[in-house]
């Protein structure tokens, strides 16, 4: 028999593999959102950015035959949407949550509009790195097909951690996010720092979209994102604005997506709608447990959610 049935052992394997596959878009979007929020602005529009990224990646990969151009295009289209958000949300009396939701509508509309011709064709997918040896069971071999995007995300998380902690620019971003007054006193342009943070964050979110359309599940359809962009906002809070924690949280959320189908395939199948809501319930629960009116969340940027204008 060519394939070896794994039975119950398939569940942890499926989760491990699904964690890497399904966690990659979460990872990029949440790192992007983390960077954005560290500078003191929320970007709910990453859902639209994700879709735009997925569409541009797929389209460019299809037209040029090079998936890496696709990834680049995804990042750039994300950065363009990010520039709109960054500029608009820093105008006086303009609320960043509202801009975010308008950007979801606009970004997804644009992605759907431009993406019509790319639904049918098959674009070149990103290559995967094979860590398996030929003697392993096929299921294990499949699980060990690692995407370079996943590795890239894996590298960006500690890099971003280091960036926030130890670099001058990281300090600027934290200062702008924590206390814009102090940052202004330091002579930092709040507008520029936020603009660049939002654009860079959206660049990452766009790559998250590329992970959806060029890696896993590897198609472009209008329903490709099942809310990962919006979820990333919650995920960042779940991770307390810590890039390394974003990594673990993304893996957790990615793994949760694969748990349902994996359990069904070995015979457990009750209440899958409620099961699918588990990540949301868990996040809410953790927020309720850990937040307290007496102390602020560790890592929360002080200016987040305020309308502090930084046109200095």
């Amino acid at each position: 028999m060519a394939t070896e049935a794994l039975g119950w052992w398939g569940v942890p394997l499926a989760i491990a593999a699904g964690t890497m596959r399904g966690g990659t878009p979460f990872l990029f979007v949440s790192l992007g959102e983390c960077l954005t929020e560290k500078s003191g602005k929320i970007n709910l529009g990453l859902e639209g950015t994700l879709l735009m990224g997925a569409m541009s990646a797929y389209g460019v990969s299809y037209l040029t035959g090079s998936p890496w151009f696709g990834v680049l295009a995804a990042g750039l289209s994300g950065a363009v949407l990010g520039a709109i958000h960054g500029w608009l949300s820093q105008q006086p009396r303009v609320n960043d949550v509202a801009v975010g939701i308008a950007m979801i509508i606009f970004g997804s509309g644009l992605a759907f509009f431009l993406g019509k011709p790319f639904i049918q064709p098959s674009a070149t997918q990103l290559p995967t790195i094979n860590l398996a040896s030929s003697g392993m069971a096929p299921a294990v071999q499949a699980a060990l097909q690692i995407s370079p995007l996943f590795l890239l995300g894996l590298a960006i998380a500690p890099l971003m951690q280091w960036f926030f902690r130890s670099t001058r620019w990281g300090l600027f971003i934290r200062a702008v996010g924590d206390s814009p007054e102090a940052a202004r006193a330091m002579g930092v342009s709040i507008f520029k720092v936020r603009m660049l943070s939002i654009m860079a964050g959206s660049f990452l979110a766009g790559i998250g979209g590329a992970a959806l359309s060029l890696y896993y599940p590897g198609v472009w359809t209008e329903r490709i994102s099942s809310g990962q962009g919006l979820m990333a906002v919650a995920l960042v809070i779940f991770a307390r604005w810590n890039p390394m924690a974003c990594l673990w949280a993304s893996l957790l959320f990615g793994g949760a997506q694969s748990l349902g189908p994996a359990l069904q395939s070995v015979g457990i199948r009750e209440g899958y709608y409620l099961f699918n809501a588990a990540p949301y319930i868990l996040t809410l629960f953790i927020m309720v447990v850990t937040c307290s009116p007496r102390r602020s969340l560790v890592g929360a940027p002080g200016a987040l959610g305020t309308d502090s204008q930084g046109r200095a």
Partner: protein
Amino acid sequence: MSSKRYLNLSRRQVIRGMLATTAFGLTAKLGTGCSPASNGAAAGGGADGLTIGFIYVGPKDDFGWNQAHAEGAAAMSGAFSSVKLIEEASVPETTAVVESMRGMIDIDGANVLFPTSFGYYDPHVLSLAEEYPDVQFFHAGGLYQEGVHPNNVGSYNGYIDEAQYVSGIVAAMTANAGRLGFVAAKPIPSVLRNINSFMLGARSVRPEATTQVVFTGDWAEPIKEAEAVNSMADQGIEVVTCHVDSPKIVMETAERRGIMCTGYHADQLSLAPNGYLTGAEWDWSSFYTKLVTDISEGKSLMDGSIPHMLRGGLREQFCKMSAYGAAVSDEAKAAADAAIAQFMDGSMVIYDGEIKDNNGGVAVAPSESLKQQDVKLEQMNYLVEGVIGSIGS
């Protein structure tokens, strides 16, 4: 803006250049040909007064249900130069669809409407049909009740489970161990019927075959669909098929994992050139063309010259099989062709008792032989013996 650049490439160049199917080519042609000529509020329509409106619940190019109808509509309108086709996509099953239909009638002068989503029927189509007794409403779904629903409403429904039965035969004879998989959206009768027919087809040639079913919970759940195929591949399942909105993900993931697949909704050979065995395809072009021929000859639902229930399977050309893939043996082809022949001469009854469900109960009693039109089949709430899975939500 860099992203706007390939706007100009869009639809015009890319679609035309690459889409092989003639039907879809027609859509694109129609898209450019039908410019703002029709803005007037006056009712009128095409040359012989026939304006036909199609409404889809999702985008027209979803590689699934909606696309199958849109291609059928395009083929139909290509066959009648005098018919004006108007379309609206992504219309939700709320007052929005009532207003869309009303707009098609009042503004564009539509006299025949095809609301193609199941959930449009009650209450939306029913309420509007009473208001516009001269407009004919053909609803895809088979929900018409004689004497209860308005006279100008008709239902049409394709028994695509016949094609799934044949797919089941091919799948079971090609799989070494007879282990099949089915990625399904929701445990509702139309989906269960496809799963069961697939299983019964498989067991008709291979009594020990099994079908693992995974419900994703919704019509389009790309990641869960891919996860389902992956976990099935991990479990050693050899052939997968599906009933979801867009089978593309299931086919491509199966191909990547090196397992085989059978298609749904449309021909998906190009997505899985190695593993594609065959597939259950809709054949709406034939149906729509025939129906519109009747209408343009003056027949109508109201005078009874068009039946209110239009149903059929392989024989009536509501659905068809994809061509066999390379991996299908001659033996399997012969068995499948034999089943198709039985469907064609009307001698095949899929749900012929006794059939047990997968909990050991009796689903179809020994004395029963449920023909395709039997209402019992439309209320299906069981999985037959051999299917691994349960319909609890």
